[in-house]
């Protein structure tokens, strides 16, 4: 399992390759499926940049707990979560998750679970900087509701 909360940009392709190589080496883990997701900064309503604040310490703890729960529930061979903070411009990759499982259904479900929980239970806050000024992104009810299916 690898959890990284970082300000630096990362290469999602290189991360997927490294993750896949690790899973392939650990043949005992019996990995037959890897699902990855990357989130990008969208340029909604002329938004120029985004400032992501987080709670150092709690962020890592919360993500580790989410990832461990997913690992147990879907018997994952491996899990990867990378989430950036600081200033990001439109088009930049904010975060990614990867879930490795024996079969694809578990890998897809685990990746969705990780995303749903990262949205509402990992202490990050986004502020959008646009032509009209800066505004905190409000949490959506739909994101909170999404947790109920798990």
């Amino acid at each position, binding site marked *: 399992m690898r959890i990284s909360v970082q300000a630096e940009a990362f290469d999602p392709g290189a991360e997927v390759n490294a993750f896949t190589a690790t899973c392939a080496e650990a043949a005992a883990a019996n990995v037959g499926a890897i699902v990855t997701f990357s989130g990008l900064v969208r340029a909604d309503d002329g938004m120029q940049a985004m400032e992501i604040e987080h*709670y150092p310490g709690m962020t890592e703890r919360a993500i580790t707990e989410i990832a461990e729960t997913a690992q147990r529930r879907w018997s994952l061979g491996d899990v990867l979560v990378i989430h950036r903070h600081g200033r990001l411009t439109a088009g930049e990759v904010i*975060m990614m998750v990867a879930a490795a499982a024996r079969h694809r259904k578990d890998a897809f479900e685990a990746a969705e679970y990780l995303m749903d929980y990262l*949205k509402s239970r990992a*202490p990050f*806050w986004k502020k959008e900087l646009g032509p009209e000024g800066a505004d905190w*992104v409000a949490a959506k009810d739909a994101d909170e509701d999404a947790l109920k299916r798990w």
Partner: protein
Amino acid sequence: MEVLYFAWVRERIGIPKERVESSAATVNDLIAELKAREPRYEAAFADLSALRVALNQELSEFDAPLAGVREVAFFPPMTGG
């Protein structure tokens, strides 16, 4: 204890964290003490439904006891991902 503020709560109160000497029994009691201090706290804590609290870096409830708590954090609902 150490009290931390994030996102617009931090902006409204004007500082990211502070040391608070308090004998408050619960989070609600601590909020009442802070609100009584200055209008900026009153403004930040006006609507608790828009706030979340973490005790020792674990998400918690407003009626939770503060015994043994070293770090309290107040923030709006999280928007990760």
